[in-house]
């Protein structure tokens, strides 16, 4: 009997051992999955604006008195922009069961701006521009303990502006519906020194000391952009063809987010950013017309600290209605304070189709360095007439439509489609319209 019992126990342990081995192998096979394309997102937008306070012409209509003629530059902010973006989402699982997600994106924008041609007072500068911006993000998530870690990189290229960015983020989800995230990012930008080409500006213009060795010379860009180069004119001499020099602009951001499930219908998030910028924070083609009629280019401090704090609260108010709300308080050391509040009300026509009216209100005070055209004194150290730095408020409202049937749209891989239109009006007389399309393929 004892022998039988020992044999049975031995067999049991053997089976147990055997099954446990099988289970472990099975588990590894199950969990380890190579990266697979899970989702493709396509976003396209058409944006159109009009206004009368272009920073290129000094914040309004300006008359530039040159040695040979007088040029009247209207302050039109007429601009159109077509933006297209594709993002691939790949998901895989490592041998330890960690989930790996890769987001690879590519965006292309093309704009036409009326004011851009007046970088040259004759209106000969190109009014068009294209921006290309690829991005790559990788995140690894331990689904057992709720932690994640990720790295990202971003590049943007346009004729007068290049940017390279890196970021790293960590996250932690607790068992009670709380999620904490921390992200640091650094943008290393290069601003090409494309200055307005006016005879008077040339005569009065003194470049910042930081631009050595170009202190006493003026750079005129090649209007046709055929060579990508420019021309440097020395004070009394001839000209020399060179690449247009650039100055760095760096942006460092630390972001903290905390989100919390409040109950079955409500969740909220707190978002805090600390942003530090240094380098060349002006734009070289922004004119400023001083109160004595002379022209200068925008000159701003080489450092800026920004603190935005945001709060989101989303509430599934009934079977058909969701309330999405957002508030942001912003302050910086240039004296700008802003409040943003928005509400969006997605209403479900069916469980898989909704319409979303939305409204956003924004108000800001002016920075210490802003004044309208013809107001800045020549003795001031810093000055701008860019109306993005002025005191104003704005309204943005519109409507969205979204459909995401469970079997895809018309039983295809197109799993969701969203279209959204918005109208924006600013108290500075700026008005714009934007229409966006978003397709998700699975």
């Amino acid at each position: 009997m004892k022998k039988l019992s020992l044999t049975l126990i031995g067999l049991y342990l053997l089976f147990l051992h055997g099954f446990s081995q099988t289970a472990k192998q099975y588990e590894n096979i199950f969990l380890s999955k190579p990266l697979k394309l899970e989702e493709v997102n396509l976003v396209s937008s058409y944006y159109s604006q009009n206004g009368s306070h272009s920073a290129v012409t000094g914040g309004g209509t300006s008359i530039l008195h040159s040695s040979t003629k007088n040029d009247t530059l209207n302050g039109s902010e007429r601009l159109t922009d077509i933006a297209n973006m594709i993002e691939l989402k790949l998901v895989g699982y490592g041998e330890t069961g960690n989930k790996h997600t890769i987001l690879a994106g590519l965006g292309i924008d093309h704009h036409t701006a009326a004011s851009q041609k007046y970088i040259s007072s004759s209106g000969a500068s190109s009014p068009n521009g294209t921006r290309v911006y690829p991005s790559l993000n990788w995140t690894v998530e331990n689904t057992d303990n709720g932690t994640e870690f990720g790295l990202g990189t971003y590049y943007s290229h346009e004729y007068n502006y290049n940017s390279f960015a890196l970021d790293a983020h960590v996250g932690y989800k607790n068992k009670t519906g709380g999620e904490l995230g921390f992200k640091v990012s650094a943008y290393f930008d290069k601003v090409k020194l494309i200055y307005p080409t006016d005879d008077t500006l040339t005569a009065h213009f003194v470049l910042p000391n930081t631009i050595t060795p170009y202190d006493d010379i003026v750079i005129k860009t090649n209007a046709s952009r055929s060579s990508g180069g420019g021309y440097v004119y020395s004070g009394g001499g001839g000209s020399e063809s060179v690449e247009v020099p650039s100055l760095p602009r760096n942006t460092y951001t630390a972001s903290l987010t905390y989100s919390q499930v409040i109950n079955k219908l409500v969740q909220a998030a707190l978002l805090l950013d600390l942003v530090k910028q240094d380098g060349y924070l002006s734009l070289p083609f922004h004119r400023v017309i001083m109160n004595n009629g002379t022209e200068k280019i925008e000159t701003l401090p080489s450092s800026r600290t920004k603190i935005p704090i945001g709060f989101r609260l989303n509430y599934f108010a009934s079977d058909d209605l969701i309330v999405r709300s957002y508030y942001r308080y912003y302050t910086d050391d240039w004296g700008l304070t802003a409040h943003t509040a928005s509400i969006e009300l997605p209403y479900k026509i069916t469980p898989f189709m909704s319409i979303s009216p939305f409204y956003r209100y924004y108000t800001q005070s002016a920075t210490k360095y802003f004044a309208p055209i013809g107001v800045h004194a020549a003795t001031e150290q810093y000055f701008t007439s860019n109306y993005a730095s002025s005191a104003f408020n704005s309204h943005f409202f519109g409507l969205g439509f979204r459909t995401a049937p469970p079997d895809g749209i018309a039983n295809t891989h197109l799993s969701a489609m969203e279209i959204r239109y918005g109208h924006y009006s600013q108290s500075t007389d700026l008005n714009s319209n934007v229409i966006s399309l978003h397709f998700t393929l699975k």
Partner: protein
Amino acid sequence: MFKKQTAILMLSLVLMSSACVTVKEYQKNKLNDAEMALSSRRVEKNEMNFQSYKEGAAGANGGKTGGGCGCN
């Protein structure tokens, strides 16, 4: 400057933490709805871009905080 921000931060944290109940996974069907996401959506991406060009404030929405473009 920091006093006001700290007050907003603390008030938000208190409001968020005081009224929380534990919600089980099977009870999260409404919270998991795509329109309940606690972030700006992809379709809003270019709206946020033009706002960062035409307004002085940016950040605290998961998007741009400055840098990467000729905006503020």
